[in-house]
């Protein structure tokens, strides 16, 4: 019986590891080609590089303002996440301390936002940002990403029920104002959900393509993903350089994945499993 189980496990490994290799193949493909010349890529696209040749990396960093677009993406992501979490947690806090018909009406109204896809508000939002002179600015992107605060509100609100109410009450008796209770008591208590929601929303903002593609036009305001897209034409014949660019852009995501894997899976499950 035991040996049979062990053989089953070996068979599973023998099937699943090649399948995983197949799924991961595109990543192998782009990584090996970053260290080849155009000629080598054309002749043997799948072979391992003959030497550790970092010329493509040097070339990509010299031709594209990668540091600039990395900084843009970073600033937009951090600003958007902070804004979303503050707006979302404030509303969740309000619904915790004020369980009246007003709160229920607001919650019911906010659910409507889930029914509205971004695409359906795109044209009015575009004209609004034109009026506000925020088209083609990083601030404009942050304004648009603030829409994510409604999703944050719902996830945080669900978690906030776990905050022991006696703690808030005690603080209140000690004479703390609502703002102080929110800032020094409630926010630290709900840190786990803030991290989970923050990680999830950060992935959305960092990876988002549609918003910068529509709202950003000048190269100095490009995010990383948009820069990769714009560079396709530039590198249409120089494939190794393009692969190098994508690898450079993927590196932060790999690090993020390795560090945050637990939180990513948490968020994935949290949104769907109750309790």
């Amino acid at each position, binding site marked *: 019986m035991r040996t049979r189980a062990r053989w089953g496990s070996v068979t*599973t490994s023998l099937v699943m590891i090649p399948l995983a290799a197949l799924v991961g193949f595109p990543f192998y493909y782009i990584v090996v080609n970053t260290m080849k010349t155009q000629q080598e890529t054309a002749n043997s696209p799948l072979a391992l590089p003959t030497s550790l040749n970092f010329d493509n990396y040097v070339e990509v960093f010299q031709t594209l303002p990668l540091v600039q677009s990395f900084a843009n993406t970073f600033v937009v992501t951090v600003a958007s996440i902070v804004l979303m979490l503050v707006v979302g947690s404030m509303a969740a806090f309000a619904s915790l301390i004020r369980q009246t018909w007003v709160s229920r009406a607001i919650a019911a109204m906010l659910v409507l936002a*889930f029914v509205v896809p971004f695409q359906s508000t795109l044209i009015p939002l575009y004209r609004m940002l034109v009026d506000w002179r925020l088209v083609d600015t990083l601030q404009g992107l942050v304004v648009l990403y603030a829409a994510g605060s409604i999703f944050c509100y719902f996830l945080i609100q669900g978690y906030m029920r776990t905050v022991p109410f006696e703690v808030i009450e005690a603080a209140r008796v000690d004479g703390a104002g609502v703002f102080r209770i929110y800032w020094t008591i409630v926010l630290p208590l709900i840190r786990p959900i803030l991290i989970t929601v923050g990680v999830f929303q950060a992935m959305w903002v960092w990876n988002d393509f549609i918003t910068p593609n529509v709202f950003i036009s000048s190269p100095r305001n490009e995010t990383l993903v948009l820069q990769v897209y714009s560079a396709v034409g530039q590198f249409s014949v120089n494939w190794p350089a393009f692969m190098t660019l994508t690898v450079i852009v993927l590196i932060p995501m790999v690090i993020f994945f390795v560090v945050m894997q637990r939180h990513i899976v948490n968020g994935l499950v949290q949104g769907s499993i109750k309790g």
Partner: protein
Amino acid sequence: MTATTSLPEVAPTGGTGPSHPAGTRGNTLLRLRESAADYVFYLPVLVVFVVLFAIPVVQSLYWSFTDFSVRSPEPEYVGFANYGRIFNDSSMMTALWFTLAYTIGTTLIVTVLAIPLAVVLNRRFVGRNLVRSVFFFPAIPSIAVLGLVWGFILSPIGSGVLNTVLDAVGGLGPVPWLSDPQLAQLSVILVGVWSQLGWHAILYLAYLQSIPSDLYEVATIDGASRRQQFFTITLPLLTPAVTVSQLLLLTNGLKVYDLPFTLTGGGPGYATYTMTQSIIQRGIAQAEFGQASALAVVFMLIVGAVVLLQLAVARRLEGRIR
């Protein structure tokens, strides 16, 4: 906005932990309620809702009944003309058709593959954690970047690696993965499946792990085969996961834009044109605000119907399980 692309959007109220009875809470809250300042905490979220959702939706609705465009900057009422034109315009109809095909295609294929994958990933075997991570990883980077990478892999010319491999293995001529309309549609759908499969398998895995193992032990003692166990224990207990996963796939599929846009640019012709691309093309590039708004309203109705269905089914399932 549900633009949080890969997020599970169901279950906004994930109730964890004990909830306090409303009555006792009301009393302890008396002093807090004295201060109207509490409602100030709602202010930011209300601003977000009004500015980024309510006003744009009303504007879209209004413009969809007008001829508003760069050529006629003063909107004039035209009735349902813009809506009628959607069904007579081949690019908008193809966009609608392909968006639906992509949605149904990815939903079906991902669901059929993700459940067995999750069952296997739940078994014990050497290299399990690595295999899980590799399957999950394509969901992490931007799908726009992955679309571009696949463009190189599927390229018909010279170093298109898939064609190189096919040529070396079977001597097959270059397959026009992205230049033949049907093959291009298939390619987009398959890359979409590749990028989402692991994510959904992990979702199912989370549900599988919550199934108590003694259920299987009892079934084994009773002489149930592995297959019987799958169909009588695993599958029924996975029902909530199937609902969540499918409805996520449906909404994300309807909203698809990045993948076809970066992989094929919507082509060849309009073969892989999506509703989103059509809205952006009409509304931003060609500045036909009225026409694009009508398309945006139709799109909202379709997505809205699916999301409402999603919430209703999730709520109902939740009631049945508790």
